[in-house]
């Protein structure tokens, strides 16, 4: 295991504070350092396929070798050594299964989510008959999520082969969608179990929790499944990385951010439940549903804006 020297503060016996050097696991380094070691391929693709004018990008630009902070565009100090150490250890394994990101784009934003959310809330039945309303919305979500997934798939295809004109999804791709859809519906079972482990109520509210997990599965995992196809080479490693949050440059990975946003929103959705406002919408799982819809949309938009920000910084610097 590679190590680096890190400074750690400790008291010595005479109660003065001294600094001692201590070995620290490489694994504790923050995310960005690791990201940089592994995202070479990814960024190349990014550059090639970016829908903004690629001429602006300097051929030299490669955050891995240049050691540039993506947000500030400034050169980083003192990390080169650590990076070089780390590269020897991890680069090899990472290169085998790079997690490609689609370039951020307005087209990837899930516009349907806020619309669906609006339709749920304006309807009002969710307060009275939660199970019925959540079921109805689920069917609406299926229809729109299928269309969205095809769009995302097309976008992925276009970005991977920018020179080839696509004439719409092929039969094989439709077949893929028709298989991936039931898979992501089936994914709601492990999601449901995870919810249960993380404290979802068991008992009469089971059905509602299950519907919630089905929603979350369609919002967070279905689009992801259409970008990172299970038919791809290395699909297992890629999905492992996605699930364990080891994705380089995840802030620029719009689909991934949307998924994360959906999950985090769902998680934060529990906060209003214990408050004593005694409103109808504080019932399980309404706030979680709202949280995951809103979170997925916000995550996607935030990632898109971050992409714009990085681009503008980059333009300014070159």
């Amino acid at each position, binding site marked *: 295991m590679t190590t680096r020297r890190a400074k*750690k*503060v400790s*008291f010595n016996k005479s109660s003065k504070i001294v600094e001692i050097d*201590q070995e620290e696991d490489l*694994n504790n380094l923050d995310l960005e350092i690791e990201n940089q070691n592994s995202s070479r391929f990814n960024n190349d693709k990014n550059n090639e396929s970016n829908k903004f004018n690629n001429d602006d990008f300097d051929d030299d630009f490669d955050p891995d070798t240049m050691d540039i902070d993506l947000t500030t565009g400034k050169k980083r100090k003192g990390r080169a050594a650590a990076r070089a150490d780390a590269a020897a250890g991890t680069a090899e394994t990472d290169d085998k299964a790079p997690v490609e990101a689609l370039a951020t784009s307005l087209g990837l934003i899930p516009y349907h989510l806020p619309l669906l959310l609006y339709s749920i809330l304006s309807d009002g039945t969710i307060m009275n008959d939660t199970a019925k309303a959540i079921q109805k919305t689920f069917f609406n979500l299926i229809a729109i999520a299928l269309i969205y997934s095809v769009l995302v798939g097309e976008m992925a295809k276009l970005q991977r082969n920018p020179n080839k004109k696509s004439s719409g999804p092929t039969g094989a791709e439709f077949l893929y969608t028709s298989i991936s859809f039931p898979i992501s519906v089936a994914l709601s079972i492990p999601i449901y179990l995870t919810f249960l482990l993380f404290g979802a*109520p068991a008992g009469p509210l089971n059905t509602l929790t299950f519907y919630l997990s089905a929603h979350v599965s369609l919002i967070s995992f279905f689009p992801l499944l259409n970008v990172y196809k299970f038919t791809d080479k290395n699909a297992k490693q890629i999905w492992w990385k996605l699930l*364990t*949050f080891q994705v380089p440059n995840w802030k620029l990975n719009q689909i991934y951010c949307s998924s994360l946003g959906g999950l985090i929103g769902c998680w934060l959705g529990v*906060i209003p439940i*214990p408050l004593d406002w005694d409103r109808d919408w504080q019932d399980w799982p309404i706030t979680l549903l709202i949280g995951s819809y809103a979170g997925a949309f916000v995550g996607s938009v935030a990632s898109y804006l971050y992409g714009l920000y990085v681009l503008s910084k980059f333009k300014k610097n070159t």
Partner: protein
Amino acid sequence: MRYLVLIFSLLAQLAAFLLFCKGFFPTKVLLTPDELDQYSTPFPDDYIEPKPQFDQVVLMVVDAMRADFLFSNNSYMDFAHKLLNDGYGVGFTAFSNPPTVTLPRLKGITTGSTPNFIDAVLNIADDENTSGLGDQDSWLKQMFLNDWKINMFGDDTWHKLFPDYFTKTEGTASFYVSDFTIVDNNVTRHLDYELSNEGKSNWDCLILHYLGLDHIGHKGGPNSPNMPLKQKEMDQIMERVFNEVVLQNPNSLFIILGDHGMNDVGNHGGSSTAETSAALMLVSQKFKNLNLNNNIESPITWNHDYNYFDKIDQIDLVPTLTELIGLNIPINNLGSFVPKFLNLYNDEEEQKNVLIKNALQLKVLLDKSNGKISTFENMEIDQLIEYINSAKEELLSSSSDYNYSDLHLALAVYLLMTILSFIIFGLYFKGQFFTAFFDVVFFVIYSVNFIASSMVEEEHHLWWFFTTIFFAYIIFKRFRIGSISWIAISSMMIGLRLLKAWNNSGQKHNLKANMKLSTYLSQLPSDIGPNVYAGLLVLSFLPMVLHINVKTEAGLSMNIYQVLIAMLTCLVGSSKMLAYLSENYNINDVSLVFPKWCLKFISFLKETTQLEDYNKINNVLFSLLQRVWLFTIIIQLFEPMVSKFIFKKKTSITHYFSNVLGIITFVLISQTNYLNVPIFPLLYLILFGFAYTSPNYSTNSNIFNVFILLLQNLTFFQFGSTNSLSSVDLTNSFNGLTNYNIFLSGLLTYTCNWAGPIFWSIAHLYLTFSKIPQDRIQSMKWKILFDKLLFNFVFYCTSGLLLLGCCYHLRFHLFIWTVFSPKILYFLSWLVCNLVFDTIISYIIVALYV
């Protein structure tokens, strides 16, 4: 040196907190006879003592009888409705001042004073000397002084309050909480004699206190299937008393009241409308033609506000009763005479005199609080009623006073300690800015929640939320480090989830819909339940027994431990099994089918101890257990020293700490409520899961501190505790004690309620010491403790400061006595836990490992 600084700061922190409590909870100053003379106003010249209306009183207290149980169309008390409709009965919805617990309520009903917060605490402390009213004036004392003969049957709280006043009495302890019938039959069986002509000549006041309805509420809530039957039973008793007393004697008064209400889950103690709306009904022949109910037909349609008939304060009963029976009003009474009953007096002069008596009694208190004697003019009836009401209002609002100089000083010291803690923390974590930053952010996010009263009530949600985030972080960290053990991760998460499912906590979402494993366990039928429970007991002892056998080297010491541990297991196991059998089922009920071994087990215990009462058998088991336990822990603690200096051998570190943890767990299990015992294997599951999943100690000490803090709090709440005083568990407070000892029973109560946190503070030692290599222990051991101590110190400083600040800021808030004050006391107990277990006991355990 740095230890001294830290321990000194811990003590200063505790002292500041205690000072705040002193200023915040002033003890109530009662009126003394001297002051009575000093401030009393003479009666006007034309005052004549009003004639007594009644000479015989029956008071029937039905514990937790909410107004709607008696008056609404959901009530099954048909006879009571008939009484109301016929005009014999007068109904009220009586507001019972929170805390809505029996002891403070009985004080209120008898003395007419509002309870102060300390009463609620004393309800728990249950000490005869402190909770007794002593010489305090009450209508019972007035009756006693005027040679009334009082007979009392029912809840023995009355005995504690009035040990001397009763002529004939039998108390029923509420030992079998799950028993709905025996407690009440023990009261009703006296009625045959007491209501006979001979019996009636031997009492002037008869008090009956029925507990069954409250037990049903605690067990199954207000809509429990047992409720209709119990209400009908109470109704029949009313009918009996009415026919045999009220109809026989025109000068008899029959009072039916609930001491408090209950909420939708069946609990009480708080201040919700459902808990404070108790029923009150006065029945007499004399009311028949006065139309005191204003032609309202009973039963009344159920309403959400519990608004039935007139709303009065429960303490109004005190002046009303004493005036109606012609006695002096208790001197500390704050209630007002219910004006409706003026109709009983024909003469307007007499009506005026009744009110003057009440007004002058209140005026003494008013003058005393103002420090000067005001004048009392001749007034008309309406003016008198107004005077009484305004006096009452003023006295109620001024009944609590804060000692501001204490509060300010305490806040200043606490603030200073917090700043100090931040400075030390900052210096200690100088190189790891983000670690310290996240810790502080976590502390602050937690503490900010004290502003919201609902977040104080629902604090367990916060800890669950933080814990899941933390565990998700740990698991993701493990994913990146590699070498994932799925068994460890899943056992940790499943253990955590089962812990969460074991009990519900909090007030609002204490839903029946949420499956509670402990209720499920307690509701098993008698032929299956004991088998299941025995299985769970075996599981509970498994980790300790395995641990001790696996980690100890073979040899003499191992044999000694095996014997001792076997003894402990037998003793704790049989006492918990007996508690389960005797408290969950009525063993003497022949209609219940038990597994054969249960009956053998019980008869074996009875034969060996030569005792019949299960409570006493358990006590014998406990006193034996405590001796064996003390012996075992002493042997274990001194083992390293002995083997080093005598046998020149080094004790293995995992052996030492795992054994200490195991032995301490035995005493914790013995002090835990029998339904919570199976939580301990879950805690072990989480501990082992975390030990395998957590990263290396030397670089991540902070993670271990966070883990222990989170689990301490989460476990505390998942034992069923809340931040409300009503959830303090007293079932194990007197284990093994033969006579009352405030220190020992306090210690036992504390261990009983803080069993989870104590387990984790000892587990911290095992967890960290098993994570560092043997050769670095001597150099690291004090650092480990210091690290934890500092972390906790900063946590308790930050959260304590914000809590005190909130309480100071919200001191006039509606919920200050029901939500925030109990939280202050709970926080004080946490400080004690930090000082005693996380600091002193941990220090001793580590110091003895040489």
